[in-house]
């Protein structure tokens, strides 16, 4: 049993998953991940000159044949978008951790937020179908980092591990050895073996083609199927149904912890797999209730996405600026009781 923080658990998870290369640039509130891994003798560690170098080095390491990871926060994530898009097209397994803080810009470095949710899905250019997990406890930080590596190997893509400054810095007493897991082995051929293509141009079996629209259509279908088939095996969520209510709270990350204080009067759906959205599960939970409330630390990013899946009005409680006060959340929840039901 150890008293450790979320960020440390993420680092431990990466090591347990067999990560062998870490490149990173320090940024609050993700730096502890880097500090911890800098001391890990069994991996190759590089403090790169910036986040653009960090993501590209990690991509290089993955193409060279090892499990690789980098961690950052909002501003760094914005810098990494090109690399992430590259990794999707070039099919590079990777884990990218984003411990969110208030943005945009330099924002409020020490104030947690959940403002990068949309960026996971739409941050880079073009159409792609990312897989993203978001833990809400220290134990989950460990478990879902490992699963992120597994999902990366199965989907040959950069899997995003979302987190926030609260969960990242939260200290909890955990027994990591209690978390059971299996590891997926490398499926991607490393550079030098077989035919590959690494300019991330559209390619078929390693042969680039920049002129044929039907080839792109074929690629898009394949990519969509590949990502969704891989994600099927990682349907992580927690649904606490309260039989005495028609009100459902949907919350993730630190907000799920806060929302768990209200399960005496509300049902709670906590998505851990944020993307692809758990449409079936959310639609089903939404059908069983007629008031859907999303509590999130942004202006309503996931709410919008839940709305199209739940096919019902979704109310948003935005917790902004980094401080969460359960009393204020309760006030907002009580005020919503005046709203009409769907």
């Amino acid at each position, binding site marked *: *049993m*150890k*008293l450790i923080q979320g960020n440390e658990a993420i680092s431990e998870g990466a090591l347990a998953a067999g990560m062998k290369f870490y490149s990173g640039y320090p940024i609050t509130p993700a730096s502890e991940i880097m500090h911890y891994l800098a001391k890990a003798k069994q991996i190759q560690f590089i403090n790169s000159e910036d986040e653009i170098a960090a993501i590209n080095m990690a991509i290089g390491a993955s193409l060279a044949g090892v499990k690789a990871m980098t961690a950052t926060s909002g501003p760094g994530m914005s810098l990494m978008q090109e690399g992430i898009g590259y990794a999707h097209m070039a099919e590079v397994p990777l884990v990218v951790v984003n411990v969110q803080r208030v943005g945009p810009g330099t924002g409020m470095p020490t104030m947690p937020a959940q403002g990068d949710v949309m960026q996971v899905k739409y941050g880079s250019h073009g159409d792609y179908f990312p897989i993203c997990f978001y833990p809400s406890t220290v134990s989950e930080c460990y478990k879902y980092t490992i699963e992120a590596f597994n999902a990366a190997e199965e989907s040959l893509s950069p899997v995003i591990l979302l987190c926030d400054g609260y969960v990242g810095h939260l*200290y909890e*007493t955990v027994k990591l050895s209690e978390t059971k897991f299996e590891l997926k082995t490398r499926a991607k051929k490393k550079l030098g073996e077989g035919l590959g293509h690494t300019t991330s141009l559209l390619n078929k079996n390693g042969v680039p083609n920049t002129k044929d629209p039907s080839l792109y259509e074929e690629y898009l279908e394949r990519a969509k199927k590949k990502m969704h088939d891989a994600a099927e095996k990682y349907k992580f969520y927690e649904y606490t149904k309260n039989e005495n209510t028609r009100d459902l709270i949907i919350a993730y990350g630190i907000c799920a912890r806060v929302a768990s204080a209200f399960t005496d009067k509300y049902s709670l759906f906590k998505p851990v797999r944020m993307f692809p959205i758990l449409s079936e599960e959310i639609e089903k939970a939404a059908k069983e209730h007629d008031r859907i409330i999303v509590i999130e630390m942004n202006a309503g990013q996931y709410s919008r996405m839940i709305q199209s899946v739940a096919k019902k009005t979704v109310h948003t409680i935005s917790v902004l600026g980094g401080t969460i006060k359960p009393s204020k959340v309760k006030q907002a929840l009580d005020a919503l009781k005046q709203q009409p039901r769907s």
Partner: protein
Amino acid sequence: MTNTEWIDKECKRCMICVLMCPKKCLNYEDDKIIETEGCIKCKLCEEYCPHFAIFVKTGNKVAGK
């Protein structure tokens, strides 16, 4: 002869004392907090314990009894 006294009944196994000890001389083994060599009686464990479950012994009196 240890410098600290640990009260099993009050201890909630939160590990704050283990984490905070500057000499890393408190360990959690066999579901007990064990003090090993190196204690400098700084009382950080006593100060941080939320459950009043560990004390630095002072003279002949054992605090907390």
